């Protein structure tokens, strides 16, 4: 075997961390879309009185709860499905493989190391920048005489979009690489 033939396969395959990030982005986007459809649908149908902050506070709190619950459930389901997929893949490649070996390869695939932590830190900064911009925009909306519900929505939506951008930034760093400092 020459060194030219020793080209590693699957360099561009999606890793566990990338898959997990994609699942988080999809979950966050679905919850945000559901919030927009429900809340603005109610507002446009006229069932919400302008200035009814209780409705907005309740709706936002409910959707924060839904977001957390959906995220936990979907991550658990994702872990189970990925473990099954890895086990099946290993069994197809090697029929005589024992369960301990399969368990070891699943654990190896799901390990979180220093690069993951660095990417997490850098992408969290993007999320905070979005949340900060949203907070300032929310305060500005009050100064420019927009109703308080606009302020609440700007804050909630900027936090949600910031979280989505955190995911996109993570995917970008996983693909393009990351430098210390």
């Amino acid at each position, binding site marked *: 075997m020459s060194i030219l033939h020793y080209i*590693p396969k699957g*360099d561009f395959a999606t890793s566990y961390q990338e898959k997990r990030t994609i699942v988080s982005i999809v979950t966050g986007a679905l919850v945000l879309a559901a919030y927009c459809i429900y809340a603005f649908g109610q507002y446009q149908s006229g069932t919400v009185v302008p200035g009814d902050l209780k409705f907005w506070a309740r709706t936002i709190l409910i959707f924060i709860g839904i977001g957390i619950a959906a995220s936990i459930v979907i991550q658990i389901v994702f872990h189970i499905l990925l473990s099954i997929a890895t086990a099946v893949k290993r069994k197809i490649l090697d029929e005589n493989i024992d369960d301990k070996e399969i368990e070891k390869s699943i654990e*190896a695939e799901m390990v979180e*190391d*220093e690069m993951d932590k660095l990417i997490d830190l850098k992408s969290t900064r993007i999320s905070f920048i979005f949340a900060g911009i949203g907070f300032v925009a929310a305060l500005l909306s009050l100064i420019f005489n927009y109703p308080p519900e606009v302020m609440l929505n700007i804050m909630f939506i900027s936090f949600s979009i910031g979280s989505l951008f955190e995911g996109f930034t993570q995917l970008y760093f996983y693909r393009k*690489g*990351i430098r*210390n400092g």
Partner: protein
Amino acid sequence: MAKNFEISNNIRRLRFFANAMTQQELAEKAGVSRQTIIAVEAGKYSPSLELAFRIADAFGVKIGEVFDYQVKGDS
């Protein structure tokens, strides 16, 4: 004025001469994910000093045999 360095590595060559060690095997020996080994090998991620030593240890060589740097002018 600080100088700019470009860090390069010989991981692919060392893996080849270590009985064609796979990236997964190296990842397991260094205690990181395969994704991180891929990124280090491609020069997309500069590992911490600790990880650099662990990679060198996995091959049983000195750190200078795995990683090298070239001066690329002043920053």
